[in-house]
């Protein structure tokens, strides 16, 4: 049982973070807190992706001792951490930044219009 727990601890962490983010999005009334919850939600998935690529004893995916003329030297892959999730997560991070940027801009316009960020007050003002 213990090794099952220790072996898979990164999955538990990402699920735990995800649920925190999920709760914040649903539970919290303040819109900024919802936004922070959304960020936690996104970042837990990025963390999960990075944890996929990890290998025991693997170093960062940079090929040393290569004069860089791009020849396909056979490098033993087990030495290096799997680079693909890292590349994917670059894009996911940029997407996260983009979403947060748009959401913050929305919050500013909402604040300018309703002078509050509490959801139930906004709903009352809308009706």
């Amino acid at each position, binding site marked *: 049982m213990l090794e099952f727990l220790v072996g898979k601890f990164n999955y538990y962490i990402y699920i735990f973070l995800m649920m925190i983010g999920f709760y914040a999005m649903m539970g919290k009334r303040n819109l900024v807190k919802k936004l922070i919850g959304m960020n936690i939600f996104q970042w837990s998935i990025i963390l*999960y992706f990075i944890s996929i690529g990890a290998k025991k004893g693997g170093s960062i995916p940079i090929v040393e001792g290569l004069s860089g003329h791009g020849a396909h030297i056979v490098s033993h892959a087990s030495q290096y951490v799997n680079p693909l*999730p890292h590349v994917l997560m670059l894009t996911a991070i940029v997407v996260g930044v983009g979403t947060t940027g748009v959401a913050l801009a929305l919050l500013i316009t909402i604040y300018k219009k309703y002078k509050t960020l509490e959801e139930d007050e906004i709903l009352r003002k809308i009706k």
Partner: protein
Amino acid sequence: MNFYQVHFPILIVSVTLLFSFLIPVFGWWKKKLCYPLAIIAISISLFSSLIVANRVLYHGPIRYYLGGWEPPWGIEFYIDHLNALMVVLVTSISLLVLISSKKSIEKELPDKDVPFYSLFLLLFTGLAGIVVTGDMFNLYVFLEIASLSAYALIAIGEERAPYAAFRYVVLGTIGACFYLLSVGYLYIVTGSLNMADLNQILPNLYHSKVVLVAFSFFMIGIAIKMALFPLHVWLPDAYTYAPSPVSSLIAPLMTKVGIYVMIKIMFKVFEPSFSIEMLPVTTILSWVASIAIIVGCVLALAQVDLKRMLTYIMVAEVGYIVLGVAMANRNALTGAVLHIVNDALMMACLFLIVAAIMFKLGIRNIYELRFLHRKMPFTMGAFTIAALSMMGVPPACGFFSKWYLILGAIDANNWIFVAVILMSGLFNAILFFRVIENAYFEPAYAHDGGEHIEVSRDEAPLSLLIPILIMAVGIILLGIFSGKIISAFIQFIVPVSF
């Protein structure tokens, strides 16, 4: 193949991407150049998508390796019959909506037209990219491009738009993250992101828990993106308060592209047998879809605002198509894919008409649409054609997709779905005749008051009217020639195992 034949798939996406960044620069310098630039960009994409569709028709699927890398490593654009049909659909409707948006943007959002056009092109790039790409993660990137520009476009709208857009942001991000999670899970198990590649690796992995979890995450994520019944909460507010040219672009295409992704993943990545025998996915989906149809129609009945009524009808139409897909037999799937095309056209036409009415009269309440048939005769004529097509009156295209759906339901021998499809036809009839009645027949006091209220004809501006009329004629032609479209494209889409 000569030189330029090869590179058209990438032209569809990259030209509009670059032009969408060109427009803000021109915006500072010479404002009135933005609209022609946008038109050029999308017509180039339309031109290249037509060529691509033509080549797919005669030479079969095209594969285009971005950066020259072979599929398992690099990203590839894989265009088969389903993609070709969707690309042509997306580009043609975007072009028509763009032409019609010039006037309504100048009236509704006078100072925001430069960002509008660049975001419009970015949204188009996202949609075209989703439909063209053959790589799972690349599809996520295009999905996010489309969603982000959609969030921003919706937020430009009237007073309640930012709040509706914020709710759309939150829900849309959850959907996209679920999709990303399912890509991650598939990646752990199979080690590849390419759809065609996955199709080979997955069949012998169906019993592993990870693949089941990946499939369920994927279905929830895409259900949010296409506003399937329980997860459609964001759609009515977002599309009603968005400015009218924006809603006439997003409404017909965003949900249809979501459904395309579902079909692609359910039938092209995972084997159809997976979602029929292994997991009871099709039964669940078909029940959820039929509830979606009923709830969509009933809620639409309760609406007074014409545009909000159309959004609820769209929830029902999504249920329609998903029901066709979920019934998993040849006729039903043909009906579903044909309905994607028909419904996109009908919805675009209806939303453009609402935009024209908003532009001219500024009202959306159904019961205030008085004397419309004399004020805007052509617009109301197009509305009647689109309404008849939604109801399933034969010469228009709506009937033929309903015809295939009913055949599929009878083939699958579940009579409840046949009843649901026929019922939704009647619901649509009630919904649309309510509007036609108000628009065409003035109340009695207009007569008994002796003289006849003389109403001058002030039709919507030409640039708004021509796209509407083109779409109305298209609805009729698509109806008559649906047989040709099926034999040309949809025949090959249906997986051989049905």
